[in-house]
C-alpha cells in the first residue's frame, strides 16, 4: 500500500531550500491542490525573485520567471490573454510587499482572477537575511543589526489587513505551516484560492506564515515555535475577506 507519494505537479528536481525551511511544505500543498483539482495541464505558475525564484524548476506545470515584484502584473497578462488557464503567483514578502506593492494592490483592486500564494517569513532569505517589509518590530536582521527600529524604518506591512480594505479582492486568508493543524488549514485555504479562480470569482490571496531557520538563526524546531510565539501574535491567522461567503450569509 502506498502511503506517501510525490504530487504529480511537482518535478523530480531536488529543491535548493535550506533544511527546516517551510517553502517545501507550501510547494507540496500547492502541487497537491493542483493534482486534486486536475488542473496541471492548464496551470501557469509565476515565480518571483527571492528564495523561491527557482520554483519554475519544481512545478510540473508551465512556469514563468518574473522580475522582482512584478509577478501579479505578469499573471495579469497571462490571464487576460488566456482566460482558460489557471494562473498563480508564488511570492515572498520582499517581492510582494515591498518592491511589488503596487502590483499587489492594483491586481487586488482590479480583482484579477488569479491566485496569489504569499510566503511571509519576515526576512529576505535569498540575499542572506536582510530586513523585510514584514520583519517584526525589534527583529534583528543583517540590515537591522540593533533590531528593527520602527521610528527609523517604519512598521511591518500587514498585507491581508491592508488588502481587506479594498472592494476588489475576492478572498484573503492568512495561514501558517508550523504544525499539522495549521498545515491542514493552509491546504484548505490554498485549495479555495484555486477553486475561486476556476469559478471565476477573482483575486484570491493566501498569506502563509513561514519559517526561515537559517536567517532567523534558530533551529528548525525553534523556528516553528518562533512562529507561534512572535509571528502569529503580530499576524493573526484567519479569513480577512471572503466576498462569496459574506454574500451567502446575507442571503
Amino acid at each position, binding site marked *: 500500500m502506498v502511503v506517501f507519494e510525490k504530487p504529480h505537479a511537482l*518535478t523530480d528536481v531536488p529543491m535548493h531550500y535550506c533544511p527546516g525551511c517551510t517553502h517545501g511544505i507550501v510547494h507540496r500543498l500547492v502541487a497537491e491542490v493542483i493534482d486534486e483539482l486536475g488542473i*496541471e*495541464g*492548464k*496551470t*501557469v505558475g*509565476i515565480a518571483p525573485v527571492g528564495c523561491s*525564484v*527557482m520554483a*519554475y*524548476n519544481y*512545478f*510540473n*506545470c*508551465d*512556469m*514563468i*520567471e*518574473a*522580475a522582482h515584484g*512584478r509577478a501579479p*502584473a*505578469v*499573471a*495579469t*497578462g*497571462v*490571464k*487576460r*490573454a*488566456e482566460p482558460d*488557464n489557471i494562473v498563480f503567483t508564488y511570492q515572498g514578502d520582499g517581492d510582494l510587499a515591498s518592491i511589488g506593492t*503596487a*502590483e499587489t*494592490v*492594483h491586481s487586488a483592486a482590479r480583482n484579477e482572477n488569479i491566485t496569489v500564494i504569499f510566503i511571509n517569513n519576515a526576512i529576505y532569505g535569498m540575499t542572506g537575511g536582510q530586513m523585510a517589509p514584514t520583519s517584526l518590530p525589534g527583529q534583528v536582521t543583517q540590515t537591522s543589526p540593533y533590531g528593527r527600529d520602527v521610528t527609523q524604518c517604519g512598521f511591518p506591512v500587514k498585507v491581508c489587513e491592508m488588502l481587506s480594505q479594498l472592494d476588489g479582492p475576492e478572498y484573503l486568508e492568512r495561514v501558517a505551516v508550523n504544525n499539522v493543524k495549521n498545515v491542514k488549514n493552509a491546504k484548505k485555504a490554498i485549495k479555495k484560492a484555486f477553486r475561486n479562480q476556476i469559478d471565476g470569482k477573482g483575486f484570491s490571496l493566501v498569506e502563509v506564515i513561514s519559517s526561515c531557520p537559517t536567517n532567523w538563526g534558530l533551529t528548525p524546531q525553534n523556528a516553528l515555535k518562533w512562529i507561534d510565539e512572535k509571528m502569529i501574535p503580530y499576524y493573526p491567522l484567519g479569513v480577512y475577506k471572503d466576498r462569496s461567503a459574506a454574500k451567502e450569509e446575507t442571503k
Partner: protein
Amino acid sequence: MSEKVLMKGNEALAEAAIIAGCRHYFGYPITPQTEVAAYMAKRMPKIGGTFLQAESEIAAINMVYGVSSTGHRVMTSSSSPGISLKGEGLSYLAGSDLPALVINVQRGGPGLGGIQPSQADYFQATKGGAHGDFHMIVLAPASVQEMADLTVKGFELADKYRMTSMILADGTMGQMMEPVSLEYDIKPAPEKPWATTGTKMQREHNIVNSLSLVPEELEKFNIERYKRYDEVEKNEVMYEEYMMDDAEICIAAFGIAARVSKNAITEARRQGIKAGMIRPITLWPFPKTPFKKAAQSVKQFISVELSMGQMIEDVRLATECRVPVTLCNRVGGMIPSPEMVLEAIKEAAKNGGAR
C-alpha cells in the same frame, strides 16, 4: 478599400497594430502618445481584446511580458520618461527571448523634460536601454504611413527573431495627420512551441526565464542570442536614400529631422549644391553599408538630430571617420528649421569645396 484617410500618427499606429493581430494593449497615460491608449481603449473591447490602463509603466511592461509568454502579439506605448521605467521589463523580455512591440513617442529630456518632440532617446533605444547585453530592433518612422507600416513590420520582426521591436517616433509623428492606407497582407505569426499556455499533460513544462546561475550557461545564452542579432543585421537593415546619386554632401537624419532635411536639400539643389540624404529606417541595426559606401564619394556628412548628437556616433563609426561628420541640431523640444539645415549644407559646401 484603397481610399486614403487622414489619420494621426498615433492612431494609424494603433489601428495597424490591431490589423497585425495585436489584441492586448497595456499602457499608462503620458503626453504625447496618449492617443494610442485612447484609441485602444475604444477599439479593443469591441474586438474581444484587452485594453488595460496599468498602475504604472513597470506594471504595463510586465503585463506585456505575461501576454508574450503565452505567444500572443502584444504591445505597450509610452513616451521617454515612461520608457525609462519600462527598462527593467525590456531587459527581461530580451533575457527571456520574448517578442513584443514597444512604442516610444519621444519628448524632450532628461528627467521630466518637456512634452515637445525629441530624438534624445536614440542611445537608450539603440545601445541597450537597460542592463545586460541585448538589442532591440529599432524602427524610425518618418510619416504617418510609416507609423502604421513599421508597426506591422515590428510585430513580424519581433516574432521572427523573438525580440522586442521598438518604434522610435517623436511627438510630431504621433500628433500629425497625413493620408494613410492600411492595407496589409498579414502573414500568420510563426508557431511558438515555447509558449506557456499549459502543458495539456502532453509535453514537458515550458519555462519562460532569464535566470541562469551557471556562468558557462549564461555565456552560452548570450552568445547564441548575439548570433540571432547577427542575422537581424544581415537581413533586416532598412534605409532610404534621397538624391544620393551625385551627392557631395550627405545628410544623416531620421524621423522628423529627415522630413525637415528634405526641404533643405530641395532648396540646396535649387542653389546648385549637390546635397542628398541617407535616412536610416532601422536605427538598430544601423545601415552601416550605405554610409560606408557614401563615404567614398561624399565630402561631408551632416547629422541632423533633435538631440545633442547621438546618431552622429554611429555615422562616424559607419564611415570610419574618413570624411568630416558635423552636427546640426536642436534639443529640448525644438526642431531644426529647413533654413538651419540649409545653412549647415551651405557651410559644408564652402568648407569641402563641394559644388
